[in-house]
């Protein structure tokens, strides 16, 4: 038995020393050069930034995409840190849970523009420097990435099988070790999926996060988003085309170097191997596994982690579990009372703040706008379902086709609505269409794909036996859809529709106001209202509209989607 070879996974492919190392080295080196260049801009002064306007030259896009990509990576890291702390706290402390989970629900429904009111705060952290503006931009990207990741992690932590937890306790793993050995690996597959969704979300709002304009404060950070914003302002169609190309390349690189390897390694973490699931492959993962240099780094990292797992001497005596005062019931009550009071204070303060500026009649108007947007979301989800459910079923039944469609849909999900502004605005102006109707499709541009994703997954999970049985009995046509296909994909469809609906509400801020050059079209709706209020720096109206919008989203989730989901789970799940 050769000890030195033990930790290397069992891959049957021939080991090629050197080749993979070289590739890994080139890639890592390129990354560092790229990142260093992108990071240099951070230290500069704001004045310098303003002196150098965004250039629409295609060559400038190389640097811009590096900056944008770096921001997204930093935001993603921040989202991971947030996920690991926030969700862990929510899952482990009953007391924290009652506050943190509803708060997360609320945060998730706040559109990205809502968070842009924090920009002045970040700017004054580093007066006159770019760093503050960068932080503001990164924070905005973070707000379009973090929440669903945290939710996914929280749910995973709550669903770890009992016996694995018992193993951890029986073998007395320290909390740190338990986290890295049990909880994180267990949550990994769902978390990776959500990271990909988050990345797409980040791209969708890339313009909003880089070209920030809140009242008198305007920040335009070099990046793909600002490039797109300027291209729209100058009506430069060629530049739009270049931006799409650059985005495509960056998304492809992320996909190949980050997400493919993650997905391939996520198969490792699954508790059960689903039958017939082809293992995902990734050349980048193979490279990382084969490369000795990267292997060394990984081992050093693992050793570091393990050092953290040690908790010194194993306790000789049996640990005494004492009931501390902390567990007492009255602390619970005190905590709930405190939360209630805080909530009350927040309500009173917010009401006072909003009513100081806004007349009560306008609140009614905002609610009306909410309903208009609600109608839009509902109609669009219905339309998207009519289109994508049949297509998703058809694709899901053909595994080869599914493997092609999935990455394409993933790219389309990342496609920012702004890139379609030229087409939409020109069409509406030329054909004299009603913006209230024809701007709406932009809302669902990025989110409809979640319906497709999930339906594909559901359809590909269709057991061959059921398929054969249906075929054997001659179940065809509409009967087949009604009795076989639709019931089978329904739970998956509902999951997708929930995501799509939530995302569409958020997207309304980017879809209800569009511009192309000097031409600006506005639809009536709460998204347009928020966009207007933030660009004027009107905090009161922004806060009011965000609250109303969140209320709509949360109510809709509670009263419509959740019951539907529960029903789908009960009725249509096999076994």
């Amino acid at each position: 038995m050769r000890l030195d070879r033990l930790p290397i996974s069992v891959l049957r492919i021939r080991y090629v020393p050197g080749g993979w190392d070289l590739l890994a080295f080139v890639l890592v080196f390129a990354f560092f050069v790229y990142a260093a260049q992108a990071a240099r801009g951070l230290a500069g002064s704001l004045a310098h930034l303003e002196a150098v306007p965004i250039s629409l030259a295609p060559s400038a896009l190389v640097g811009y995409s590096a900056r944008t990509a770096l921001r997204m990576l930093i935001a993603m890291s921040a989202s991971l840190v947030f996920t690991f702390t926030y969700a862990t706290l929510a899952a482990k402390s009953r007391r924290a849970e009652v506050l943190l989970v509803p708060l997360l629900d609320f945060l998730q429904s706040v559109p990205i523009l809502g968070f842009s009111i924090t920009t002045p705060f970040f700017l004054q952290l580093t007066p006159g420097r770019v760093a503050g503006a960068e932080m503001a931009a990164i924070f905005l990207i973070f707000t379009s990435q973090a929440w669903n990741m945290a939710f996914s992690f929280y749910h995973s932590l709550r669903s770890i099988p009992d016996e694995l937890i018992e193993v951890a306790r029986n073998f007395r793993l320290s909390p740190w070790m338990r986290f890295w050995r049990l909880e994180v690996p267990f949550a990994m597959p769902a978390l990776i999926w959500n990271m990909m969704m988050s990345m797409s979300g980040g791209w969708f709002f890339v313009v909003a996060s880089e070209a920030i304009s809140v009242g008198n404060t305007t920040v335009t950070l070099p990046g793909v988003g600002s490039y797109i914003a300027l291209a729209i302002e100058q009506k430069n169609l060629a530049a739009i085309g270049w931006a799409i190309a650059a985005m495509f390349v960056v998304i492809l690189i992320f996909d190949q170097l980050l997400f493919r390897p993650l997905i391939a390694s996520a198969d490792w973490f699954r508790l059960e191997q689903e039958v017939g699931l082809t293992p995902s492959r990734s050349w980048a993962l193979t490279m990382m596994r084969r490369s000795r240099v990267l292997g060394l780094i990984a081992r050093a990292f693992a050793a570091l982690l393990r050092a953290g797992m040690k908790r010194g001497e194993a306790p000789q005596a049996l640990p005494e579990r004492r009931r501390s005062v902390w567990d007492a019931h009255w602390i619970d009550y005190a905590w709930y009372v405190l939360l209630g009071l805080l909530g009350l204070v927040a309500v009173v303060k917010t009401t006072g703040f909003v009513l100081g500026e806004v007349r009560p009649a306008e609140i009614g108007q905002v609610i009306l706008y909410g309903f208009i947007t609600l109608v839009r979301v509902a109609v669009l989800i219905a339309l998207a379902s009519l289109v994508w459910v049949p297509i998703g079923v058809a694709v899901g039944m053909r595994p080869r086709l599914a493997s092609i469609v999935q990455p394409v849909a993933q790219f389309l999900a990342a496609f920012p609505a702004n890139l379609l502004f030229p087409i939409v605005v020109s069409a509406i102006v030329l054909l004299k269409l009603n913006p209230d109707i024809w701007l709406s499709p932009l809302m669902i541009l990025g989110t409809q794909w979640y319906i497709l994703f999930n339906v594909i997954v559901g359809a590909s999970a269709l057991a061959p036996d059921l398929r054969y049985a249906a075929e054997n009995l001659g179940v065809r046509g509409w009967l087949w859809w009604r009795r076989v296909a639709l019931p089978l994909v329904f739970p998956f469809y509902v999951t997708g529709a929930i995501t799509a609906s939530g995302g569409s509400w958020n997207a309304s801020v980017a879809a209800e106001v569009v511009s192309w050059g000097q031409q600006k079209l506005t639809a009536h709706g709460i998204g347009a209202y928020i966009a207007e209020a933030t660009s004027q720096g009107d905090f009161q109206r922004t806060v009011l509209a965000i609250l109303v919008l969140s209320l709509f989203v949360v109510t809709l989730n509670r009263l419509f989607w959740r019951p539907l989901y529960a029903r789908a789970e009960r009725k249509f799940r096999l076994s």
Partner: protein
Amino acid sequence: MNATAAALNLAPLLDVRGVSKSFRKPDGDALVVLEDVNLTLRPGEIVGFLGRSGCGKSTLLRLIAGLDDPSRGVVNYLGHPVGGAAAGMAMVFQSFALFPWLTVLENVQLGLEALGMPEPEMRRRALQAIDLIGLDGFESAYPRELSGGMRQRVGFARALVVHPNILLMDEPFSALDVLTAETLRNDFLNLWGEGQLPIKAVILVTHNIEEAVEMCDRLLIFSTLPARVMGEIAVDLPQPRHPDDPRFRALVDRVYVEMTAKPRGERVGPKSERFPGTGIGTTLTHVSSNVLAGLMEAVAGPPYNGKADLPAIAQELRMEIDDLFPAAEALQLLRFAEVEGGDIRLTEAGLQFTREDTDDRKKLFARHLITYVPLAAHVRRVLDERASHTAPKSRFFDELEDYMAEEGAEQTLRTIISWGRYGEVFAYDDHRQCFTLENPT
């Protein structure tokens, strides 16, 4: 008690005194799952906890391991009360409970890592355990690549590598096929017999009577809900033991007799609702009508002709006690059979059932269901009384919850729905969660 251990008068490793465990029901009453258990474990013994699934013996094992606190009583380990997960007791799980993202070696090292052992030492000990348990060559494999038997070997290696004083085994062979389980048991007994295992004593939880007799020095037999020790049997056969050995068979028979004995010291009075067949508060274990019919047919047919030895019929039908006992009890409840002294005997009605065709069987079943299962009669009465002839499931669920825990109530309703459907006594609409009198026509 193991004679040698007693003679040496070794200090007990484990001393369980008056341990009870109860859970709080929604209405605030306590539901007792484990009542007044006493046990002393000495070095050198393998003690078996024998009882049906869900009877609370696994709960007891977790109390011993310190994974849960007893409601009353105390678990003393090496003379000190256990509080929190105790060092020196390692567990082997029915579902293996391996971490799928760790290799065999990493899984085995898990407990050592938690001790903060230096890497070389850890590696050495893990490889030693892997060698011992016959996993050589599989060090870098992931659990998913292994068969069930190999996975459970990893489970054993992971537990043994920390050199625990007591090995706690929670149905470790139940998830394996018969042949694999036998091989693994033999390997384990060989290592144990040769003194190669770094452990001092073993507790084995099982519902497999033959397995218990084959492996243990002493058996504690548990009743169901609340779990109490109904009896203790010393197994003083020399190892290796053979199931064909008449003394082995005699012991198996004895266990069956113990397990079918009427509970001693049954309480009477208001609490009588708890005991089989006396009220709507009886927890019913779900047994399919197919199994009931099959069992009756087997007992009625040759060579039994209406009366069968439980071990014999268990072997013939390949039923474990987890399947056999609930089925036998259901038949007893429905007055289709009587169970006592390790035997099952069909009643006149039971014999008649086996002679009828499908329709008449259903009618006979319906009659007995209404007459002898108070809950069925209750449901039917409510449905008859209501003008709409429908009643929500929640109505009965709430009633049952006065007597049993949530899962018990859920299971009891599932049983009554299934039996009611078979006897066509009433129908149930899962979509609306309602009992009805109408069957679709």
